[in-house]
């Protein structure tokens, strides 16, 4: 990445215009950290990394505006210099994750159930639709209800509606103190404990279960973190050192992710669900997200997730291509609406064709 900021929106616009004219598919790509994610990759690469830099940041406003090709790592560093952060704790993928890809894939880290998701922190954006129009939706203020919320619609749309150019986020203060706790318990006991704590105003910022250990992260004012830690107890070493574990979880650096094994799935469920999932799992998000390693056929996993009140996403991290499987299938009426919306933004199917759904 170049050292200086660069506005490449005119080049991006030209490229989309050209592709549309030639009826050529484009595959939007930032740092390539999420090439593994989605149904399939089609078309010529439209590189966004040259479109980078922070265009506006006033810490007292709690708002930052940043070009889509900017790395999440660079953005987080700039925010940290003012003791602020992205509240949804997105994975940085070794510095390769960009702002655009993070929003487009809607990926959020361990803090998500307590602070909100990628889309929750999007205030507005500019984007280039498949019609090769550079448009602005939302704004740079925290409250804004003018017009349809087409900026939050882009979060999780996997680039199938528009190329993201510039995104404004609400940011949060970095917590003054963080602390990890651990408890040796069974999974059922862990989920029970989590359900109890979730009803109390505790400064939770992470809750995960794996290998017979329930791990808790507390973030906030020092006094609140200490009081909560005292009230919650814990039988393993709960010093500040444990906080590093959460970074490994966010970055998929834990052995559960790096050691390989059966295909990896992300199963999102109501937190109190007691699912019967076929395989080995690591539970995050206070019980609301199960990382699952399973040899079971996709249909079985989609069914199991649905029966437990949620959905599943194929997450073939480090496994090569996903082979056409990605999301729990959409009901017919919803799929039709997706197709119509796709047509409303990208009538010629230029952008990220087939990445989200087989139908578009």
């Amino acid at each position: 990445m170049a050292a200086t900021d660069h506005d490449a929106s005119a080049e991006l616009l030209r490229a989309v215009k050209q592709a549309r004219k030639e009826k050529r598919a484009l595959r939007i790509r930032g740092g390539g950290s999420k090439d593994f994610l989605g149904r399939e990759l089609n078309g010529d690469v439209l590189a966004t990394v040259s479109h980078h830099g922070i265009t506006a940041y006033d810490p007292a406003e709690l708002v930052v505006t940043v070009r889509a090709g900017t790395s999440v790592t660079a953005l987080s560093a700039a925010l940290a210099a003012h003791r602020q952060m992205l509240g949804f704790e997105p994975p940085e993928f070794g510095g390769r994750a960009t702002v655009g890809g993070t929003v487009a894939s809607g990926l959020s880290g361990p803090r998500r159930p307590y602070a909100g998701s990628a889309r929750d922190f999007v205030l507005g954006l500019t984007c280039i639709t498949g019609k090769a129009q550079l448009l602005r939706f939302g704004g740079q203020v925290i409250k804004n209800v003018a017009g349809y919320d087409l900026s939050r619609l882009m979060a999780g749309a996997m680039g199938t509606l528009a190329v993201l150019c510039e995104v404004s986020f609400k940011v949060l203060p970095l917590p003054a103190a963080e602390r990890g706790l651990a408890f040796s318990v069974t999974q059922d006991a862990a989920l029970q404990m989590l359900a109890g704590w979730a009803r109390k105003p505790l400064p939770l910022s992470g809750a995960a279960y794996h290998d017979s250990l329930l791990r808790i992260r507390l973030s906030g004012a020092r006094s609140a973190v200490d009081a909560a830690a005292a009230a919650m107890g814990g039988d393993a070493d709960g010093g500040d050192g444990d906080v590093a574990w959460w970074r490994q979880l966010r970055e998929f650096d834990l052995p559960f992710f790096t050691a390989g094994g059966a295909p990896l799935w992300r199963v999102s469920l109501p937190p109190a669900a007691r699912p019967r999932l076929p395989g080995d799992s690591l539970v995050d998000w206070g019980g609301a997200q199960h990382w699952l390693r399973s040899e079971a056929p996709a249909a079985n996993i989609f069914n199991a997730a649905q029966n437990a009140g949620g959905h599943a996403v194929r997450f073939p991290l480090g496994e090569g291509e996903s082979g056409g499987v990605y999301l729990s299938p959409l009901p017919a009426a919803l799929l039709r609406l997706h197709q119509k919306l796709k047509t409303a933004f990208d009538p010629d199917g230029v952008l990220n064709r087939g990445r989200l759904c087989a139908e578009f």
Partner: protein
Amino acid sequence: MKNKKHRLLKKLRRILPAEAVLGDEEQLRPYECDALSAYRRLPMIAVLPDNVAQVRAVLQLCAREQVPVVARGAGTGLSGGALPRTDGVLLVMARFNRILAVDEHNRTATVQPGVTNLAVSEAVAHLGLFYAPDPSSQLACTIGGNVAENSGGVHCLKYGLTVHNIMEVKAVTMDGTALTLGGRALDAPGFDLAALITGSEGLLGVIVEVTVKLLPQPDTARVLLAAFDQVEKAGDGVAAVIGAGIIPAGLEMMDNPAIRATEEFAGAGYPVDAEAILLCEVDGMAEEVAAQMETVDALLRQAGAVHIRAARDEHERALFWSGRKGAFPAVGRISPDYYCIDGTIPRRELGRVLRHIKKLSAEFNLRVANVFHAGDGNLHPLILYDANVPGELERTEELAAAILQHCVEVGGTITGEHGVGVEKINQMCTQFNARELAQMHAVKSAFDPGGLLNPGKAVPTLARCAEFGAMHVHHGKVAFPELERF
């Protein structure tokens, strides 16, 4: 027209019980406006369904007959979003008033759209939980309307807007299709349609069920009142608190005219000679709250507060808030009529915007009192006027338009939480260009190709903007150079 109405009444009475179909003028009168009462229109027909099958059947019938439909909750909206159509059916959702389920383990409540906002928190209070968005009309306004408008409230900065506090929305589109948007698990697959329908002002679908997120009640909440001799210093105080990493649960500002009006009305103990006051509430665990109260006190003194008082107990806390929460009715007492504006600005522009409002107020010869959700930059100037003076409402609307125009110029928006409705439809042409509006219309068509659901609201036609643009110049450019003028 009369024949059409007669025919439609007959068909509707096949779908709904006779008492749920209203066609006489005296029956329709209560539905002629929402809380923006300057706009009034009688609907052709009003219907009061009480189940989803009826809603689907009414929509299918109206789609077939090409009759526009406007959905209405409690009618507390401030932008005319529920203003009926004289050629249309008003779909009154008031009978959808049941809380269907409270799931204490997953911390959600599933409610019908006609349940009031406050009723949700009351129903789950015994579990130590609450529903966070708290628009000032929360006693009366309904969840369906809250979703349609993406309602905010005093506690948005910390707890978010409606969009941040709902899990799943069931809606029926104009062709009668029932859809489930979002889900009970986080980050539902596909496009985020729950976010899209939130704040869509009843143009995309009729909301028939909502599952909201519940949060644990904070242990403690404390509030302090700080007085300033300059509005800018109060603005500095806000920036200092947020810059120090504190996210207050509520951070409200009022200027001198607003302070005087409310103090007379509520007797909350506000210093009437102050140029501005700040109310800052922090909540959470007792230990955290105590530490933050100290910090806030010190920061506001540094910013130049001439006087700071922390509420000593729950009673005084309620008293401090009574003034702020009674600000609108208080202004209503000192003026025959008032007009509330809902712009949002970057907070750093507060001083400049208030000076500009003062100048405009003198120019238009209309008094303005300002209340401000200072934490999130949402400004509510209240223009005092008398509707009985010929021309004064028109002058008020012109002043409001000029203020909103200025909000956009400083990087803000024309509406923070009240919605566009009919009221700010022209200002949408200031905030968005023709291509952006065309994209919004394309999204509308994906849901409602016939344009029958709440037509004429929220998103202006390009023709309307061309007319409006003839009078206004946006960012030094004529708004729609590509369109012919007429």
